[in-house]
């Protein structure tokens, strides 16, 4: 059998970030996909022992631009666990609101990129226009569109008052009709469905075996979400979004449904904010180690922090969702047509900055 090897990436119109696959092809069909990573490794984890643990939040946030808040929050939560800090409830609630807003904007970003990947330019622009409203909320409340810098060890740097939170919830409610109009296209349009349905099916058992996380796992019918383990989500009315089919279309549906669910969660939390301050002083230095798991828009992320009683951490480590999902994409790419490859890679919502740090 005569095979051809085509390199896809690290520069490719559909890839927002550098990820490279060597695709071994038999005619138009992929036989094997060999990934190579490491194009944007920045060594951020190694900076942890060189920066004060309070200043390292700014670096942790810069692991990735899309999940920046989650990275800051995860790092701070892990350090707070080590130091056993009594973080005020209001700070934790604000973190939930910003985390869910991050999910809304990340999923909108993904929907736009997906539309762009399957050649629906108009839909891409409409989706990103709605995302702009969410970014404005970020800039108004935190001071940044991408890097928020609002979370710190012990709580939050800034408070967001109840009136602003109510306004944010109302704003999100007001963009729901436009959002519905856009997501209906993703869910019902003939062209989108024909492009995605039945493509790259990953069964629940396979997903478990490959340790897939996040919307990718939930699209295979497995109800696994780290938010179910968080006490902050315990009293809220929500349930894990799952879809049974495991194809690209299911992954799209999961993300669409999660956008509406996140808006709903924000309204719920904004309605019952505690009033016990937003931060406690992080006195002393972390001594000991802790793991913290959170549900990023892309899936489960694990933070590990080890302190040695000084202001400088001994080790900081992140296991990011993209890293967990890449083995699944290698499996999914076997046997598909070359034209479907970019769409399939995109459905894991790859974030290479996170993965390589």
């Amino acid at each position: 059998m005569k095979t051809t090897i085509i390199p896809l990436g690290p520069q490719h119109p559909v890839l927002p970030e550098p990820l490279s696959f060597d695709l071994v092809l038999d005619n138009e069909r992929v036989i094997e996909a060999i990934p190579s990573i490491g194009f944007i490794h920045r060594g951020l984890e190694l900076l942890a022992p060189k920066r004060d643990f309070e200043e390292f939040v700014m670096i942790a946030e810069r692991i990735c631009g899309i999940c920046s808040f989650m990275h800051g929050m995860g790092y701070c939560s892990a350090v707070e666990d080590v130091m056993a800090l009594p973080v005020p409830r209001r700070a934790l609630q604000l973190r939930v609101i910003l985390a869910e807003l991050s999910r809304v904007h990340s999923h909108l970003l993904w929907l736009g990129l997906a539309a762009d990947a399957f050649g629906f330019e108009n839909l891409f622009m409409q989706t990103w226009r709605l995302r702009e409203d969410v970014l404005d909320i970020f800039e108004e409340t935190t001071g940044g569109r991408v890097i928020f810098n609002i979370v710190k060890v012990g709580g939050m740097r800034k408070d967001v008052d109840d009136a602003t939170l109510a306004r944010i919830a109302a704003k999100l409610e007001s963009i729901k009709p436009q959002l519905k109009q856009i997501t209906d296209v993703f869910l019902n349009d003939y062209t989108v469905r024909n492009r995605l349905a039945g493509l790259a099916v990953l069964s629940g058992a396979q997903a478990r075996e490959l340790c897939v996380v996040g919307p990718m796992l939930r699209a295979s019918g497995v109800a696994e979400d780290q938010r179910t383990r968080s006490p902050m989500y315990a009293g809220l009315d929500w349930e894990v979004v799952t879809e049974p089919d495991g194809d690209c279309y299911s992954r799209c549906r999961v993300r669409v449904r999660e956008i509406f669910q996140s808006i709903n969660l924000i309204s719920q939390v904004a309605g019952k904010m505690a009033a016990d301050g937003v931060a406690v002083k992080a006195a002393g230095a972390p001594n000991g180690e802790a793991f913290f798991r959170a549900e990023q828009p892309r899936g489960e992320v694990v933070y590990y922090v080890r302190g040695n009683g000084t202001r400088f951490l001994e080790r900081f480590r992140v296991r990011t969702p993209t890293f967990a999902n890449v083995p699944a994409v290698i499996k999914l790419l076997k046997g598909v047509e070359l034209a479907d490859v970019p769409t399939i890679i995109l459905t894991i919502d790859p974030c290479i900055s996170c993965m390589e740090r």
Partner: protein
Amino acid sequence: MTIASMIPAALANLFRKPATRLYPFTVREPFTRTRGSITMREAECIFCGICQAKCPSKAIAVVRAAKTWQVDQLRCLACMRCVEVCPKKCIEARSDRPAPYGSDRAGSIEKKTAPAAPPPAPAQP
């Protein structure tokens, strides 16, 4: 399943004003909380160097002997950590962003020196 469900939205867009601004001719006012850049009031500064030690990106350089303080606006993350830790509260957060710099980066460095001490008051007779 619908066909061409995007057409109503596309038609509506034809009669709507653009969603984008014609930057740089139209610039949106920054929000009050927008983290743009930092500036320092040199008259109040004691050149203690705490901001330099706390800066995560090492953008601030303080020379206590020469009484100079400088920030490299291109290195600055606008994280406002220096604003939090300044004992004299003389570093100020600004919501407007610094203007673009030339390729030599020379314009990105903002240097402040302590103002000369006022001349001693003439002795009273």
